[in-house]
C-alpha cells in the first residue's frame, strides 16, 4: 500500500477531495487549520475571522494504482495553485 500526503490551501480542498474520490481512493483523512510555508510564502491563521482559511493536510492510504490516478487528477491542481504532494510506502497494521 501507499501513503499520500497532500498539503493544499483550504480554498482548493473541495476540488482535491473530488479528485481523490474520482481516483477511487478507499478513504481519506483531512486536517484543517494547518499553517506552513512554501514557495508562495507563509500561510497563517491570522485571517481566520474572515473565513479565508489556512491550509489543509490530506492523508490517503491506497493501492499504487490509485496513486497513478491521483497523480493525474491532483498534481495539476498542485502545480497551478501551489501546495505539495508526496508518496511513501506503508503497510496495513
Amino acid at each position, binding site marked *: 500500500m501507499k501513503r499520500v500526503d497532500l498539503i493544499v490551501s483550504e480554498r482548493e480542498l473541495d476540488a482535491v477531495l473530488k479528485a481523490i474520490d474520482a481516483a477511487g481512493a478507499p478513504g481519506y483523512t483531512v486536517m484543517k487549520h494547518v499553517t506552513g510555508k512554501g514557495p508562495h510564502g507563509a500561510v497563517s491563521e491570522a485571517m481566520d475571522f474572515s473565513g479565508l482559511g489556512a491550509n489543509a493536510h490530506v492523508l490517503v492510504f491506497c493501492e499504487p494504482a490509485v496513486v497513478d490516478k491521483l497523480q493525474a487528477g491532483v498534481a495539476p491542481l498542485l*502545480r*497551478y495553485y501551489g501546495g505539495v504532494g508526496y508518496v511513501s510506502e506503508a503497510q496495513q497494521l
Partner: protein
Amino acid sequence: MDTSLVLQNLLTPPALFFFLGVIAVLVGSDLEIPAPLPKLFSLYLLLAIGFKGGLELQHSGISGPVLPTISAAILMSLAVPIYSFVVLRVKLDSFNAAAIAATYGSISAVTFITAESFLDTQKLHHDGFMVAALALMESPAIIVGLLLVKLAAGQKRPDEGPMRWGAVLHEAFLNGSVYLLVGSLVIGFLTAANSPHSAEKMLPFTDKLFYGALSFFLLDMGIVAAQRLRDLRRAGTFLIAFSLLMPLFNALLGVAIARGLGLIPGDALLFVVLCASASYIAVPAAMRMTVPEANPSYYISTALGLTFPFNIIVGIPLYLALVNRFIPVAG
C-alpha cells in the same frame, strides 16, 4: 474642528482597543485571539447590525430617500472598481489590478459599524436603510472584479472551463457574510412588524452588548492590521499611495452624491464611509477563490493594513467634518 473630531474619535474604546492591538504587534507582545474566536465576533457583529438595521427599516418604512440612496450605493460599487482598475494597471498586471479594484468597490462592515458608533457619541441620527446599502455593495464589486479579469486576461485554469458564471454569482450573493447580513436584516424587518415584544427581547444581545463586542473585535483587527502592515512594505509606494488617496477621492465623490441625494448628516457620513472603505472579508475570500493568480498580500494588505486603520482613526471624523461643511442640516 477636524482635529477635535479626530481626537474625540481617537479616545473612544473602539479606536483605543484597535490601537492596543496594533501596539501589541509593534512591541512584540504575544497577545493573540486564537481562531475561531475572531469568527465569533465577526458573525455576531454581522447578525446584530443586520437585525438592528431591519428593525429600523421597518420603523422608517421604504420611502423618501431609501431607493435612490440604495441605487446610488450600488452604482458606486460598480464604478469604483472600474476607475480603480484603470489607475492600478499603470503599475500592476490585470489579475492583481482587478482583485484590488474589486476590494475598493466593496465595503468594510466594521468601518461602517465604527462610524455608526461614532455618530452615536456625536448624538447624530442615522437611518436603518443604510444597512441595506451596506449589504448590497459587496456583490456588484465582486462581479465587476471578475469581469475585469475575464476581459483583461485570458489564461486557462486546470480545473475549470471558460468562466463559471454560476459559481461567480453564487460567491457574490451567497458568501457567508453577505448572506448573514441580508438574512438578519430581513429577520429584523419581519420581527419588528409581527412580534415587537420578541424584537425587544433580542436587544440585550444585539444592542446592549454591541459596543463592547465591537471594541473587543477591534483589538483583534488591530493585531491583524499591524501584521499586514509589515507585508505592505514590500508592496511599494505606489500601492501605499493608492490605499490612502483612493479612499479620500471616493469620500469626496461620496459627499457630492450624498448632497445630491439630500441625505441627513448621519446618513451622509455612512454613505461616504461605504464609498471610502474597502472590503477585507467577502471580496478577498472571493478573489482568493476565483483569481488565484493575484497575490493576496496585495489586496488584503492595502485594504486591511492601511485603508482600514486610516478610516477608523482619521477617516471617519474627517469625513464628518466634510459632511458638516458641505451638507446643509435639515430644518
